[in-house]
């Protein structure tokens, strides 16, 4: 049975960064991912990474922008940690080999991004996430002797001892179907968000809330789950993301009358207001009949105002996306976009070192909620979040592992239980619904009722639908009876993970009777600091979610009205 000081689940940016940090500190490390690491969804992050590296900048300014972007729901101590450590981390990545874009002097260039008070976003064309992820993977290959990789292993559950301490995982090798128990002194969840709960979403098909649900089932509280980010610029039909870097480079948003409608809601920052503000403004244009396209579902993003050479050099990926996925040459004509689900601010509640309230269990990256993003994440802060808190979790887990013995737990019963669950799914009779049908209905329900605008009635409908889907998912059937690359059975398990995440989101959104950040309740349209300047925590109680609250940490910045 494999045993490691630190076992990391998920090999995107947070996971790989955690692995490298833990290994550097001398721990024995394993990193496990259900896909090959470079397929992780961090690869799709386009625009860049924020850090106050310019001589005119100051991390306090970055922190204030982040606090304001979060609509004052972010924990300010955590935000201070993230923003003050950002410049060092970005330099570390540069030294590792990331090919950051340079200015004429050969220094790192910076671009403007939403909600930021100055140019603060370092970037590699518009493939920043890919460049970072591939460079970290280069380092994993370099350090193959100290970081053991388990690529294409799917985690089915966390192992806990009698005291509730997390001491490993059960995982299935996708290629062979073999189920195995892995013990570890500390487990770090770094397996991303839950975008597939929504349909459409910018997130990849692998982003199914595995880590959030596993931690939730193990008793860890989820925080800020109602805060779901809709990105303002997604292709109307497929939901594919057009980077915020486009607006950072100067692109305009236009309604059917050709007006830059952001004037109304953000006269100063215009298109570069924070994402929740821009998405809401777009949705209002669409709802009020000023949308563009055949059925008025879209908004125009006009990149033609950016010099063509600059677009081809710094936004090359979206030039290709426009051509290949929408048939539009963005350097010559505007492209039709709309808001689309992109990110969940919420996740497994952690402290600033990635520790969850469960002993031995850490979380970092989108799976976690520190909370640095609060009600709304600023563009280019997520890459930063993954790297800073991935590293911190790796370091803390390694340090604590040095002081404790390898846990001795009998994993046989849990191995048998998980094997039986899989066998039961595979053997289900072909009656009732297919996994894919339920997944579709879940996504469409969430996108209808738990989107940019929400209200009590819609959320109640969503909650009832989810309860029914949960029932149906327990009997949903699949086709694949094999063991080698049985993606079908993994899809059924993922559906269970997604339903748990969806339920937590809807329960929290129902609970928060105000409008803050990404949560806009049409029945409670104002922010209400008196009652709701607090986090909503969701814990699994029996089979259902239980609500509690935790305070928001405020250090230097008192809540104020948010204007862009």
């Amino acid at each position, binding site marked *: 049975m494999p045993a490691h000081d630190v076992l990391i689940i998920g090999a995107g940016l947070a996971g790989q960064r955690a692995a490298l940090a833990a290994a550097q500190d001398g721990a024995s490390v394993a990193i496990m991912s259900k*896909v090959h690491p*470079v*397929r992780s*969804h961090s*690869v*799709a992050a386009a625009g860049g990474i924020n850090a106050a*590296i310019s001589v005119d900048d100051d991390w306090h300014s970055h922190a204030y922008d982040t606090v304001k972007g979060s609509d004052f729901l972010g924990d300010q101590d955590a935000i201070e940690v993230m923003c003050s450590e950002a410049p060092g981390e970005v330099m570390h990545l540069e*030294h590792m*080999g990331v*090919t*950051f*874009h*340079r200015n*004429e*002097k*050969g220094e*790192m*260039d910076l671009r403007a991004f939403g909600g930021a008070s100055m140019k603060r976003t370092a970037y*590699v*064309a518009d*493939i920043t996430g*890919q*460049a970072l992820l*591939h460079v970290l993977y*280069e*380092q994993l*290959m370099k350090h193959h002797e100290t970081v053991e990789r388990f*690529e294409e292993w799917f985690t089915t559950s966390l192992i806990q001892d009698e005291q509730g301490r997390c001491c490993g995982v059960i995982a299935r090798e996708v290629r062979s179907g073999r189920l195995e128990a892995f013990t570890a002194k500390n487990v770090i969840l770094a397996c991303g968000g839950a975008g597939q709960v929504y349909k459409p979403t910018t997130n*990849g*098909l692998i*982003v199914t809330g595995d880590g959030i649900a596993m931690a939730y089932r193990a008793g860890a509280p989820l925080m800020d789950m109602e805060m779901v980010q809709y990105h303002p610029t997604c292709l109307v039909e*497929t939901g*594919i*993301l057009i980077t915020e870097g486009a607006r950072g480079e100067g692109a305009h948003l236009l309604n059917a009358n*050709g007006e830059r409608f952001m004037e109304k809601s953000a006269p100063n920052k215009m298109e570069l207001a924070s994402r929740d503000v821009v998405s809401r403004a777009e949705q209002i244009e669409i709802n009020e009949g000023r949308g*563009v396209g055949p059925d008025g579902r879209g908004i125009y993003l006009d990149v033609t105002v950016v010099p*063509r*050479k600059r677009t*081809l*050099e710094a936004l*090359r990926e979206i030039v*290709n*996306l426009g*051509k*290949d996925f929408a*048939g*539009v040459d963005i350097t010559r*004509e*505007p*492209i039709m976009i709309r808001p689309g689900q992109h990110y969940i601010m919420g996740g497994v509640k952690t402290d600033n070192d990635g520790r969850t309230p469960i002993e031995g269990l850490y979380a970092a990256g989108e799976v976690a909620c520190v909370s640095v993003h609060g009600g709304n994440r600023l563009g280019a802060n997520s890459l930063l979040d993954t790297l800073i808190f991935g590293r911190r979790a790796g370091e803390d887990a390694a340090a604590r592992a040095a002081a404790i013995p390898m846990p001795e737990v009998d994993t046989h019963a849990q191995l048998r239980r998980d094997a039986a669950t899989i066998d039961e799914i595979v053997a289900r009779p072909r009656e009732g619904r*297919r*996994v*894919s049908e339920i997944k579709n209905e879940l996504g469409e329900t969430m996108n209808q009722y738990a989107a940019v605008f929400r209200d009590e009635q819609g959320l109640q409908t969503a909650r009832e639908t989810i309860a029914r889907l949960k029932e149906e998912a327990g009997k949903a059937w699949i*086709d*694949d*009876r*094999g063991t*080698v*690359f049985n993606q079908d059975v993994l*899809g059924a398990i993922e559906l269970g993970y997604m339903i748990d995440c969806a339920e937590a989101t809807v329960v929290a959104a129902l609970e928060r009777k105000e409008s803050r950040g990404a949560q806009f309740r049409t029945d409670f349209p104002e922010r209400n600091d008196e009652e709701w300047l607090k986090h909503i925590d969701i814990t699994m109680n029996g089979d259902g979610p239980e609500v509690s609250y935790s305070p928001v940490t405020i250090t230097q910045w008192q809540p104020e009205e948010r204007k862009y």
Partner: protein
Amino acid sequence: MAETQTAGAEVRSADPEQFKLRLRRYDPESGEAPYWDEHTIELEPHRSVLEAILQARDRFDGSIGIRCSCRQAICGSCGVRVNGEPALACHTHLDAALEGARDGVIEIEPMGNMPVLKDLIVDMDAVHWKKIQRVTPWLIAKQPVPEREYIVPRESMIDVTQTMACIQCGACVSDCLAMEVDPGFIGPAALAKSYRFVGDPRDDQHEERLLDLSEDPEGIFDCTHCFKCVEACPKDVNPMGQIMRLRRIATNDFHIVDKNNGERHEAAFTGLIKDNGLLWEAELLPRSYGGNSWFGKFAPPAGKELLSSLPAILKGLIRGKVSPMKALKPHRIPKNDLKQVQSIYDKVESREKRYELNLYIVGEDEQVLESPSATSDPVAVGVTAEPGGKEPDADPGAEPTDTPAEQRSTTEGEGK
């Protein structure tokens, strides 16, 4: 502008149509051979082959195996062959795929050159990743490491970004002809990855890397220039172009003379064309080994290779493809044509710096070609890597129509 806008929007309002897919299936547990499996799906013609496969999987058969995630050509999971050509399934439109289909059915198979694990899933670890690891795929940073970032030329970072844009999908590996013949060939993806370090001014081991890849008989000189990888790459990484750049840097800048004779072979090749306007095949072998001298023709290794080539030469003679008379004399072309060929050499060789192709720096090559302003220097079209070099888009008056873009997407659809 309003008119362009509506036009743009209407391109995408097509109705769903039926498409037939023929999928290559293989279940390693069944003990049966691979087989073909057909499904009819319904989608708008501009949707992707991946969406079609996923619809078949969701509606008809959940056991269809394919790796996929992002649906936007960035995660690199869904490399397959569509109608026999390597492609990302998510990056190939159904209408384009149908055009390349033999009998109205879009054929989807796993990639080549890698063992199939199940259906469309291949073992990339066994081939692709093993080769990536062969090229020491990490930065060996110059010392001392600065406190802040390394100060490096802006252009060099954009330049290596082209190879950084490789998503490791394996499409180039799938159809590499050299690898088909020599499975040990390091191959297009890994060598492109290597350029990512050789082109990076922060790396301290340029010469060591190049020496290693030149001396390896399955290294940079094992590529046969077939362009398959260039066509296959969905991200315009241009792997073969990167291999050629590695060769140029190894030979021109570091003067590496490799034991595989790659450097001399290339010199012989270009030299013969400069002299004759066309390749003189019979002279290529001795000159590759012995250089351009009378004694050189008797270099023992040349004789050895000549002996081993005899069967092929004999076959050629019997079938009338060569005659001894023709082979022993160079081909002749009209004097004026020869002059033109030689003027290209003069022009290229007289430059102070080499022009290099990089799409991130120059924008899109195919749009440059149509711009009259850029055609004044036919060799340099869209290929400058120099700061402040030729600006292909400098002439805003030369607003191209949209035909070239369309042409390109058609070719892409067929090619991928």
